[in-house]
């Protein structure tokens, strides 16, 4: 039976590997195929051999960890050392092609073509191809974004208007289909040696010469109209003229530690960055502190055998934890709404909660406390129940009052049980994106710092840098991610060492 199950599972692995291999083979992705084959072979060897028993248990999780956690993290860290972002996305060759094709102008005397827009796939969605017939020589070419290829005369049929109306392997778009995709047609530029071929309407195309072209000898882009030379700057990843004018796009280059130092030294960024850091700590500590205090207080209040209805209280008190957090955050946001919100209406106030920095900060702390205290309440209840009653009774017999008994006996025992969870809660709240983004959005934003608001955490600031409207800066965002990681790791390591938790790990 065992053997049968094993054979079945391994067979499944092989079947998946074969299914995954097909697209790789079709497109000739040999590196990917190599990795796939190696991994599959490794898995088969591991589970068929009798040795390496620990690995058999660790490999499934580790494979996913490497693919979707470790590799992305390492790659992100590597982009922190580059200027990857809007305007610096591709490599130098792609930037050159982009600059050249963007500067193409039709020059008098340039060849003209009769154009038929076609596609190898579906008329509505397939990649566009220009079927061009040189009006002078009658040769037919197929042009797409990779360039021109000649088409043998036997494979096409030319109509009375001089345009190709049938071609083997292509579907020619009729006027209606072509009009529907006119934007794509205007955008398509077929690169050639001297420039690019662009469509002029739906039935004609011309070859234009690129006004700007790359000169390999001086490693610069020359503008033939103005004569200005833009020299490649490998440190910045752009073509820059003597006047300081830059060409867009640039390319991705390694900038070393620039992103890291920029966060700390650029005066426009360092101030908000440090301010955000301070608030981030305050928010995390405050969240842990308030939820812990409230949770423990309620757990203590309910910790009595004489309290009837304890079970019902518990179910009700835990309800905030069972409600979907993302939804309740949005509900809280709308309760704090200045115009329609419940809180203003109920108490007859007119406070713009999310408009002022300190009211916004107070609000998000309140919301996070509401969300987090049930967790603390639950674990405090469990820990309290685990403390032997004899200890508190002995303290009482010795004459200690209830507060004293709590401080000297109960609390230390509680802390032993809960400290690791408090540390985990700190780490979680340090990066609690939802709690800030969904309630205050990180705002309010002071006028001199539109990227970093009063309630922004480092993680929401990073998100805005990478995905906000004002030009994505992935490299810089990655650098801040590394900072976040280092901070959380260091704080957790220090806290762990203090609780000597390492003894558990090293057992």
């Amino acid at each position, binding site marked *: 039976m065992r053997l049968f199950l094993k054979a079945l599972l391994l067979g499944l692995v092989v079947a998946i590997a074969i299914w995954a291999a097909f697209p790789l083979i079709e497109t000739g992705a040999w590196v990917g195929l190599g990795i796939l084959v190696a991994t599959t072979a490794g898995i088969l060897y591991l589970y068929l051999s009798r040795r390496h028993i620990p690995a058999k248990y660790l490999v499934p999780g580790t494979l996913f960890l490497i693919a979707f956690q470790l590799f992305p993290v390492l790659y992100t860290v590597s982009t922190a050392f580059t200027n990857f972002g809007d305007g610096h996305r591709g490599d130098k060759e792609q930037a050159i092609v982009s600059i050249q094709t963007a500067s193409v102008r039709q020059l008098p005397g340039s060849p003209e073509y009769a154009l038929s827009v076609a596609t190898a796939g579906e008329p509505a969605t397939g990649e566009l191809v220009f079927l061009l017939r040189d009006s002078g020589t009658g040769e037919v070419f197929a042009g797409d974004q990779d360039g021109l290829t000649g088409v043998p005369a036997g494979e096409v049929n030319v109509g009375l208007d001089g345009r190709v109306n049938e071609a083997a392997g292509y579907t020619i778009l009729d006027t209606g289909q072509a009009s529907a995709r006119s934007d794509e047609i205007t955008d398509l530029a077929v690169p050639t040696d001297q420039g690019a071929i662009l469509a002029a309407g739906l039935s004609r195309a011309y070859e234009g010469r690129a006004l700007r072209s790359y000169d390999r000898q001086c490693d610069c882009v020359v503008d033939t109209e103005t004569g200005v030379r833009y020299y490649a700057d490998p440190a910045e990843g752009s073509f820059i003229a003597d006047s300081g004018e830059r060409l867009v796009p640039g390319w991705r280059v390694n900038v070393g530690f620039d992103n890291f130092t920029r966060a700390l030294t650029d005066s426009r960024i360092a101030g908000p960055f440090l301010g955000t850091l301070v608030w981030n700590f305050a928010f995390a500590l405050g969240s842990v502190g308030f939820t812990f205090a409230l949770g423990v207080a309620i757990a203590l209040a309910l910790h009595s055998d004489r309290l009837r209805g304890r079970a019902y209280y518990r179910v009700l008190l835990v309800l905030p934890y069972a409600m*979907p957090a993302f939804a309740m955050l949005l509900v809280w946001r709308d309760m704090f709404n200045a115009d329609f919100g419940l809180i203003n209406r109920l108490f007859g106030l007119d406070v713009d909660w999310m408009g002022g920095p300190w009211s916004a900060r107070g609000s998000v702390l309140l919301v996070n406390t509401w969300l987090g205290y049930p967790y603390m309440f639950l674990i405090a209840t469990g820990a309290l129940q685990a403390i032997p009653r004899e200890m508190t009774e002995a303290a009482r017999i010795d004459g200690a009052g209830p507060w004293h008994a709590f401080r000297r006996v109960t609390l230390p025992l509680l802390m032993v049980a809960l400290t690791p969870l408090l540390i985990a809660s700190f780490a979680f709240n340090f990066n609690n994106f939802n709690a800030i983004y969904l309630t205050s959005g990180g705002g309010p934003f002071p006028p001199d710092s539109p990227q970093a608001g009063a309630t922004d955490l480092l993680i929401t600031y990073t998100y805005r840098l990478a995905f906000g409207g004002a030009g994505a800066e992935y490299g810089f965002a990655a650098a801040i991610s590394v900072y976040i990681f280092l901070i959380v790791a260091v704080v957790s390591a220090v806290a762990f060492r203090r609780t000597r938790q390492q003894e558990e790990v090293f057992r």
Partner: protein
Amino acid sequence: MSSSHAAARRTWWREVGWRHVAALVAVGFALFPIVFVVSAAVNPLGTLSSTQLAPTGASLDNFANLLTTTSFPRWFLNSVLIAGFAAFAAVFISTLAAYAFSRMRFRGRRVGLLALLLIQMFPQFLAIVTIFLMFTTITEYWPAVGFNTSAGLMLLYLGGALGVNTWLTKGFLDTVPRELDESATVDGASHVQIFFRIMLPLITPILAVTALLVFIATINDFLIANVFLTQDDSKTLAVGMYGMIAGQRNANFGMFAAGTLLTAIPTVVVFQVLQRYIVHGLTAGAVKG
């Protein structure tokens, strides 16, 4: 009333009565946003500005609108499937690894345990650009597990399966006496049999806790799902509902509240079923003595 009666009442008040008051205040704080949500859900007008704290009407219009005019049923199905599968698979994979860490000695064991904690400190979301690029390629080759598929998102979530949960489970496994393993081995059991027949049944509390935590975390995930799922049909509850009130904050609030209540149902159900394990499981192995 005799004085002993009065004294007994004072003692009752000092020892029990105040507890009731404290509990009621706490319950009030806990419930008022939830009552507000219920009130908004049954509000016949369905807007934010017209909803009071206490329910003013009793209409199921918002629920009806939600189920018919939006893709809510589809989102619900997607979320429950993804979260359910993620919880099951993550618990299984994580327990496999925890078993190895707890019961076996091998090179790199200590380093591995610390590395797990360390890796989880880099929130998966921050690598979102890389993940986006990765999945753009994956969608090209294998669209069945690419963007806008539940399967792809499940795979992505599995990347986070090994982590704090493994550490918790390992701690729990450590409390199971090794003599059980030894006597089973003497009886001729293989490590696989020990794992499935002996270990798993003994640690069901921590398995339940881990499953619940993963389930809740997955249902609540907004960020990663938002980048991954852009087509209406493939969205999860978090992404879909956020979109519902992203534009129309006032008008759609009733529907949103109805959706929130419906979303709470699976979580509350799972929670109630696993409740007796939760308190025990969260502090197991942590209290010494």
